């Protein structure tokens, strides 16, 4: 059960961080007219196409004792970053970034520009327009972003293995735990954990689709999902 709790803690932290960071990033990507924007868009989408091992490998190098992140971490906290829970959080944030940012961008972009004009003419600055108009109309996107980053983090394997290793209670997440059990032919234990993961994932996704219907009916819009055409 340690592994499950660890996975949940990781997924919650990553979702929270991704929401806080994803909102401004997605706002900028949705509304900026900067010419070089496509570069940042590509960087954000990279984890979708990269093998987790590649991402994990470079994150590991960056966090290592000779990597820039590792050195900085050493300076502030007096110990290395690789194979810690915090390191795992950082790697997972990068890995799940597109799953949080893409639905937010899609949601923001689908808000009628005339509403933003109306808000400006009525005296509201950018921040107020964001809180009062853009965000409430993007709630489906926010829910999707949260759920996808949560679920994606919960199920990740490759990145965790590369960056976190396999330290019980620190970096041994559910998926790694299952892998371990299978390796040592403990199929019953593996099955138990796998079932729990399956149940959680199913429950979360059912909840998303239920909310989707509810909210969709209220504001006439649907959740963004990567597996459904917009």
């Amino acid at each position: 059960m340690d592994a499950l709790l660890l996975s949940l803690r990781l997924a919650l932290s990553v979702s929270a961080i991704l929401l806080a960071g994803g909102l401004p990033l997605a706002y900028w990507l949705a509304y900026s007219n900067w010419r070089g924007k496509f570069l940042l868009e590509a960087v954000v989408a990279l984890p979708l196409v990269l093998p987790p091992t590649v991402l994990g490998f470079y994150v590991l190098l960056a966090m290592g004792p000779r990597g820039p992140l590792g050195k900085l971490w050493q300076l502030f906290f007096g110990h290395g970053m690789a194979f810690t829970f915090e390191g795992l959080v950082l790697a997972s944030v990068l890995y799940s970034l597109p799953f949080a940012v893409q639905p937010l961008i899609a949601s923001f972009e689908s808000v009628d520009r005339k509403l933003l004009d109306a808000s400006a003419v009525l005296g509201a600055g950018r921040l107020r327009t964001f809180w009062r108009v853009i965000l409430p109309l993007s709630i489906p996107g926010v829910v999707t972003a949260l759920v996808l980053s949560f679920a994606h983090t919960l199920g990740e394997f490759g990145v965790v293995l590369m960056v976190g290793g396999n330290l019980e209670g620190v970096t041994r997440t559910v998926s790694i735990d299952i892998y371990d059990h299978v390796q040592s032919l403990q199929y019953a234990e593996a099955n138990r954990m796998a079932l729990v993961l399956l149940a959680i994932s199913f429950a979360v996704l059912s909840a998303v689709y239920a909310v989707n219907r509810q909210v969709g009916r209220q504001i006439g819009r649907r959740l963004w999902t990567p597996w459904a055409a917009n």
Partner: protein
Amino acid sequence: MDTVGSELNAAMLTARVKMERLRAGSPPFLLDIAVKVPSGITILFGPSGAGKSTVLDCIAGLARPDAGRIAVGEGVLFDSQAGVNCPPQARRIAYVFQTLALFPHMSAEENVAYGLDGLPREQRAARVEEILIAFRVEKLRTRRPAEISGGERQRIALARSLVAQPRVLLLDEPLTGLDANLKAAIIDDLRVWNAARRIPILYVTHSREEVDALGERVIAMDRGRMVSEGTPMEVLEAPRRKRLAQTAGFENLLSGTVVDLREADGVMRVRLNESVCEIEVPLGFAVVGDRVHVAIRAGDILLATSQPHGLSARNVIEGRIVAMETRGTLVRTRVNCGVEFIVHLTPGAARTLELAVGVRVWLVLKTHSCHLVEE
């Protein structure tokens, strides 16, 4: 009532705008226009794609002209030479979009209160209440835009834009898709609201009917330039064809036969169809016996409750009021004189003369208020 809003003559809007217009699918052209909008309704008229909405966007601060100057009274909002460009938030210009752009997730009341962010709660509530009543939508306060009708949405949009007591109102074809009566009722409420405030209202439309229904002043534009400016009649030209007269909003369009030509006086007499009623109209290309049409504006007809004497007006016709209908600051009166005339009066005049259905009246028409139109 707020003292700022009730100055009798609010500051005039002046805008000089130059802007390269690039639009996908149409050749680029230069928007180059200067407009003066005094208090009351001015219509910006032109075909779609003429640049009307862009002019409004520039005035509101949503688009930036390449060059020009935009000011309300002494207050400069944009001046390319002086490097002034006030953001839209600070311009105090109300703007009702063609799509209205009501916030779909807010109730009517929340929509209207949106522009009153800086006010204390009680004041905000009072202002919202006042404007909801002025536009007759106080019963809809808790409804969302999707739950009310098109005309009601338009009223809410007007209320939202006006509640913060703007210096100027911009309307971008806000009433398209409404039937004429609904349109007239909303415009009447707007006129009543503006009677005390007298702010400049710039109303964009591509519909000739709206030009006539609304306008004291019209600015016609095409392909980014001003084509003409003046009264609806001047802008749309004196009606030469019957079709034109209809679109140019002459409420009275009567058919008749020429019975007498008085070339020395420059007039001729026309007997109106199916009546003994004869009126004198300016001389036209016609001979006795020709069938002609005469167009008369409802606002050009005077009305008397006893037979008038000693008038210069050549046409005095007796009749009876058959219907009266009050629309805001206008009383639309139908008078039967053998043929039916429509006369526009002010509510005050109707009261003072104690006019009512059935009352005997005399219509007074100047010869030159009668416009001869060819078939």
